[in-house]
């Protein structure tokens, strides 16, 4: 079992917390749509990407490369590289997603946010509701945001002015903190973080985060009895 300590705020109001994340994602979608169209791309490009790819970081990367005159092939490779972490997420949350046909929409709705929300829950029932509610909510708010942002042009192109670039890491941090109270996970995460940060200046986007998995080499779940006997 994945023993996760209870994230109290989510217990108090999971719908409210998920709603807040959706709202923030909608605003980022707004800026993504505006940036794409402002960069000279036709509206259908950011809109189609948001529906069929639905992965923020890779979309920003794709649009950034293409709008700068880069090749769409390079943009595809960069986007896929950033999205490779979903393989590990899928392995971790496949029980949460469920079986049969649900795996298709459930896989498409996979994001950093709803995976983190789900892993932060104690039992399968809560994990499942958090995963689906957050996934569907973000899908709706993200796509509406992109459509409005792209259509309206330069509404909000600089989300940094609102500090949203700090809000997103903070959201994920709040969601993973309970899991980091487990010593084995924390050790692996800290080593992974050091590796990822050290690699960021030298490797293309996406790879450094993937390299953090090196930390799992140091993941040791000793039984308490063994720890006492040492």
């Amino acid at each position, binding site marked *: *079992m*994945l023993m996760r300590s209870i994230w109290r*705020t*989510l217990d108090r109001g999971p719908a*409210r*917390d998920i709603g807040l994340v959706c709202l*923030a994602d909608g605003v980022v979608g707004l800026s993504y749509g505006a940036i794409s169209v402002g960069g*000279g791309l*036709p509206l259908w*490009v950011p809109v189609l*990407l948001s529906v*069929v*790819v639905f992965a923020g970081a890779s979309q920003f990367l794709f649009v950034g490369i*293409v709008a700068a*005159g880069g090749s*769409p*092939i390079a943009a*595809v490779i960069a986007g*896929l590289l950033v*999205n490779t972490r*979903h*393989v*590990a*997420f*899928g*392995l971790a949350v*496949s029980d949460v997603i469920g*079986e049969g046909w649900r*795996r298709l929409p*459930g*896989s498409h709705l*996979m994001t*950093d946010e709803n995976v983190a929300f789900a892993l932060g829950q104690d039992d399968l029932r809560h994990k499942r509701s958090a995963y689906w509610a957050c996934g569907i909510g973000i899908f709706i708010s993200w796509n509406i945001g992109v459509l409005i942002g792209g259509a309206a042009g330069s509404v909000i192109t600089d989300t940094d*002015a*609102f*500090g*949203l670039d*700090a*809000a997103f*890491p*903070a959201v*994920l*941090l*709040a*969601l*993973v903190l309970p*899991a980091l109270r*487990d010593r084995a996970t924390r050790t*692996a*995460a800290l080593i992974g973080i050091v*590796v*990822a*940060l050290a690699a960021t200046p030298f490797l293309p986007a996406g790879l*450094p*985060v993937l390299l*953090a*998995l090196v*930390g*799992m080499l140091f993941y040791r*779940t000793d039984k308490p009895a063994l720890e006492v006997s040492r």
Partner: protein
Amino acid sequence: MTNTPLMLAGILILAVGTFALRFAGPLMRSRIEVPERAQQFLGAAAIVLLAALVATSALMDGHGPAGIARPAGVLVGGVLAWRKAPFVLVVVAAAATAAGLRLLGVP
């Protein structure tokens, strides 16, 4: 500037590829019985990836450092989350700290 067929092909390949990456986990798991220890390991691996994502997106911008305002905002949010502050407060405080510092001219 935009070559429509090439762009469309690029978007569709990215879409199919991304879906394949997302679907790989559930597909593999439905074929193989995964022991409890392995399940625990996979959960921890996902947390390690998310933690690395937090660190790199908080501290780095592209290939260089992200300045001061963003890491400061994330730090404030992180401390509040550690103290079990409400989620709304964590998010708003992180954004407000970063935005406030930038208003004061801090990069």
